[in-house]
């Protein structure tokens, strides 16, 4: 303990480096635990599978979809004794009103079978009936959503209204589904209710007509209807197997089962399979089309592991290094003890005890630090006991290694010589420390290059010409209360006319999607006129109006824009450039006037627009068609406003007034289109943040290590410096001499880091369809930064040594 206090700087450098390393280790391990634990909390989670669809059509198109036909899970349930329960699940993102004008947007609303809670068991906190999801007007809502919607009031039997105007009562409140699930669910309703409301809701009067004769027919998987739903209406299918049933037992029977159902022609001609995905694998291992939401991936987990290893390595090396240095300084002390009867084992115990004390203090500091990080970033995560155990194991391991290395090095050096040689002979003995500091710096430089590279890619994505202009453009959801309402065109016309009167709104557009938002409709049924076989690719289908390309500054390549339609419906369409080869059209001009069949409607291509990025630069631009059709089939639409002035608040308050007058039941909530587009990179930014912090940390710790080495090195060379000064060396000559010594290692580290970082950053960039090139300056910058910081941290020590009175130095023996 005394030696810890005596050498304050060295002790601080050792403890702070280790503490930071431990804190990062704990935090990132908990983060990995969190990512790995998706959907493991369900009871019998290992027996629950999602049934995904894998179809190879005869024309070569392959669809690997997270969604499946409704008949899939029903058929498996009926035919196979191994399947004990199943459910289909259709997801919608809706806006919900609680009776007053107040609304909650982006609510995860699912329609499902009454067996949902058999497959996905949740504690029912409050319930009105014993049979959940049997009441046509009833829904079950999550505990947190109940609180959000009704505050502290009892939610049972309270009414809620969804955007279509459909009113439900709360039948039950279930325990929240934790955030580490691939399913986000706020409200659960039965398919039975969906069909009832679709048949019996009068959109004109916004009332539900009572139909006492309504009979719900359980879907029949043996009818062809269950196997020809377009992809946007298909559900996610889940099955639950008898405990311990191997999935192969089910897989092997699928082909036989499918032969029992009257599959439509296209499926029959193709090769259709089911892909059974264990639910806890979905988050990290599934990246199919139509996932419920963007999943994580194993590559990022791997990167996290690498970061943990790297940071821990840097910290531990730093500790071992500094510990070795301080122990070499103690050589004389140990020698005296040996001469006075101490054994080697007792000396080792001394070093080990000190090492344990350092590790203990570091852990003591790291725990609250990690706790704060976990609370901020991963709230509600329970830290698994194995993490605590691994931390303890690491502390023990580091303590022992950090004691063993200096012990062996002093043993090798010879205790007996400790008295004689003082500090002089040690110089040859600490090559290993130099190697370690070089390794530390290599890693640091790799981290700096990767961080800069990722930052550059972020900048590239932000600054890329996306092919559209989202500046000064705001958007809102289209009024939810108007969905399916026959009055939509009238009200929309009034809204548009009033906006036209506002001089500061340069353009207003209505569309089914906007850049940065999901395209809910993928159409694989587009075919040339008079041909039965569709094009082999699926197309994004976005419904827009005549103002869309103006609002988003999208350029026409050939032909003309869509024309104004009184009711927003026409047979004219636009396509993007990428759609041309997909349709087998040689160039944009040739496309104009061609007629294609979209579903069962013949549409004329009137214009070709230049490609723009509707989605993030992670994905390539998809072939797309732009129709004009206000009926978006229940999905959410967008209103976009391009403003011509900077005083956005004033204009938006005018728009809010217009909105309130027309859609009094609904609040006007708007956002910036650019910001919405940028949220697609939130995950990348988060990752970059972790990397940046790690790089800074590694740099800091490496510098601490370097500083410790500098102190030791200078102390060791005090006499030499004195002699050189006496021989006529100037202060600057001494500083250069000392600094070059460190510079050598940093440059060596840089040379080692170059190829490794080149490889790493290129692997990471593979994830982006559109990527920046890694210019030489990124590598140059990292090297320069490392060298500058290394020099800055040692120069002060060098200066102090160089200006010391040489008389003092020469007195030192």
């Amino acid at each position, binding site marked *: 303990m005394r030696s810890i206090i005596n050498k304050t700087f060295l002790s601080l450098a050792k403890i702070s480096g280790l503490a930071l390393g431990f804190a990062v280790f704990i935090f990132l391990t908990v983060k990995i635990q969190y990512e790995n634990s998706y959907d493991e909390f369900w009871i019998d989670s290992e027996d629950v599978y999602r049934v995904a669809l894998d179809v190879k059509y005869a024309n070569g198109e392959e669809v690997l979809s997270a969604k499946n036909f409704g008949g899939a899970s029903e058929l498996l349930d009926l035919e196979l004794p191994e399947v004990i329960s199943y459910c289909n699940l259709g997801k919608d993102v809706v806006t919900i009103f609680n009776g007053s004008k107040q609304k909650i947007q982006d609510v995860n609303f699912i329609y499902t079978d009454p067996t949902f809670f058999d497959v996905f068991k949740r504690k029912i906190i409050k319930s009105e009936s014993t049979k959940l999801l049997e009441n046509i007007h009833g829904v079950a809502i999550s505990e947190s959503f109940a609180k959000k919607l009704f505050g502290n009031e009892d939610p049972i039997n309270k009414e809620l209204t969804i955007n279509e105007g459909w009113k439900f009562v709360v039948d039950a409140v279930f325990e929240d589904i934790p955030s580490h699930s691939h399913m986000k669910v706020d409200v659960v309703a039965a398919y039975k209710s969906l069909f009832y409301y679709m048949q019996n809701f009068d959109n004109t009067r916004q009332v539900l007509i009572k139909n006492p004769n309504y009979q719900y027919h359980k879907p029949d998987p043996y009818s062809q209807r269950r196997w020809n739903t377009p992809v946007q209406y298909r559900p996610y299918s889940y099955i639950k197997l008898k405990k311990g049933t191997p999935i192969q037992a089910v897989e092997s029977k699928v082909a036989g089962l499918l032969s029992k159902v009257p599959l439509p022609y296209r499926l029959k001609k193709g090769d259709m399979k089911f892909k059974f995905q264990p639910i806890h694998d979905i988050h990290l291992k599934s990246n199919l089309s139509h996932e419920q939401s963007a999943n994580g991936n194993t590559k990022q987990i791997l990167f996290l592991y690498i970061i943990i290893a790297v940071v821990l390595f840097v910290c531990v090396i730093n500790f071992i290094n500094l510990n070795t240095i301080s122990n070499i300084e103690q050589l004389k002390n140990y020698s005296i003890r040996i001469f006075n009867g101490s054994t080697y084992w007792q000396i080792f115990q001394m070093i080990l005890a000190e090492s344990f004390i350092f590790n203990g203090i570091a852990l003591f500091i790291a725990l609250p630090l990690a706790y704060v990080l976990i609370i901020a970033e991963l709230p509600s995560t329970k830290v698994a006991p194995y993490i605590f155990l691994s931390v303890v194991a690491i502390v023990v391991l580091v303590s022992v290694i950090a004691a063993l290395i200096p012990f062996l090095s002093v043993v090798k050096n010879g205790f007996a010589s400790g008295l004689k040689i003082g500090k002089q002979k040690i*110089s040859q003995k600490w090559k290993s420390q130099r190697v370690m500091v070089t390794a530390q710096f290599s890693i640091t430089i790799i981290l700096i290059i990767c961080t800069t590279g990722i930052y550059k890619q972020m900048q590239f994505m932000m600054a890329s010409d996306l092919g559209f202009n989202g500046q000064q453009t705001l958007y809102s959801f289209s009024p939810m209360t108007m969905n399916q309402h026959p009055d939509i065109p009238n009200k929309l016309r009034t809204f548009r006319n009033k906006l036209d009167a506002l001089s500061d709104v340069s353009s207003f557009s209505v569309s089914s999607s906007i850049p940065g938002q999901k395209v809910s409709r993928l159409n694989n049924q587009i075919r040339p006129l008079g041909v039965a076989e569709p094009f082999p690719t699926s197309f994004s289908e976005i419904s827009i109006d005549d103002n869309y390309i103006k609002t988003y500054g999208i350029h026409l390549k050939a032909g003309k824009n869509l024309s104004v339609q009184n009711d927003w419906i026409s047979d004219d369409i636009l396509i993007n450039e990428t759609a041309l080869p997909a349709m087998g059209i040689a160039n944009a001009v040739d496309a104009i006037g061609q007629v294609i069949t979209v579903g069962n409607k013949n549409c004329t291509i009137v214009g070709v627009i230049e490609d723009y990025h509707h989605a993030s630069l992670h994905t390539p631009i998809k072939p797309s068609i732009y129709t004009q059709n206000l009926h978006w089939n229940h999905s959410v639409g967008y209103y976009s406003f391009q403003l011509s002035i900077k005083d956005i608040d004033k204009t938006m308050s005018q728009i809010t007034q217009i909105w309130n007058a027309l859609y009094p039941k609904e609040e006007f909530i708007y956002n910036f289109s650019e910001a919405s587009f940028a949220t697609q990179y939130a995950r990348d930014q988060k990752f970059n943040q972790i990397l940046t912090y790690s790089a800074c940390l590694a740099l800091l710790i490496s510098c601490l290590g370097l500083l410790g080495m500098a102190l030791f090195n200078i102390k060791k060379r005090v006499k030499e410096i004195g*002699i050189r000064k006496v021989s006529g060396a100037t202060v600057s000559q001494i500083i250069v001499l000392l600094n070059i010594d460190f510079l050598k290692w940093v440059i060596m580290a840089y040379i080692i880091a170059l190829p490794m970082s080149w490889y790493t950053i290129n692997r990471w960039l593979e994830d982006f369809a559109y990527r920046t090139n890694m210019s030489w300056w990124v590598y140059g910058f990292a090297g320069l930064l490392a060298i500058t910081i290394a020099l800055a941290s040692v120069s002060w020590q060098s200066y102090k040594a160089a200006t010391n009175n040489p008389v003092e130095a020469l007195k030192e023996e």
Partner: protein
Amino acid sequence: MIKITDLEKYYKTDELQTIALNKLSFEVKEGEFVAIMGPSGCGKSTLLNILGMLDDSDGGSFIFNGEEVIDYNERKRANIRKHNIGFVFQSFNLIDQLSVFENVELPLIYTGVKKGERKKRVEEVLEKMQIMHRRKHFPQQLSGGQQQRVAVARAVVNNPKLILADEPTGNLDSSNGNEVMDLLTELNSQGTTIVMVTHSEHDAKFTHRIIRMLDGQKVAENTLV
């Protein structure tokens, strides 16, 4: 060559002030070989450091080669030092990481002598000191006498006008000690002024004059020649 008048030097700690040099005055002429003697702590080494411009004084005058240097800054002093003064220490003060050749070469590097010239001059002086055959060895591979010869070689390689020697035989046995003293005498006979701090009456006999000190003051002076 050296004229000091009323030279003062104090060492201060938190509680007390120790007087190392107390109004010390004397002169050393060019070509002289002077021994400074006195008990431990009498200020001999302090004096030598001030003469070597390695340390500041706290008062008095110090004229070196007709130039008042007492107020010179570190750069000016370093400049005079490297062109005019060579040092020999009791503990040799060689750099362990450098070979014999490199140790001797050091002052020439700092005075900006070209490489070819350096080689010539180092070899000349090593030859003279009879350690040419050891030029590639490192200090730890040499005997004490050999190490001190290297140190003397380093001190004279720049042809300094003045050599300051601090107990040059203190770490040597008598035969090695005599060798070093012969070397110094020879250098002196070739015109180099030498000021030597010593405890040894035997060594002092090699010089022209002995200045005896006590408590920072000159108490006696004996001329031997």
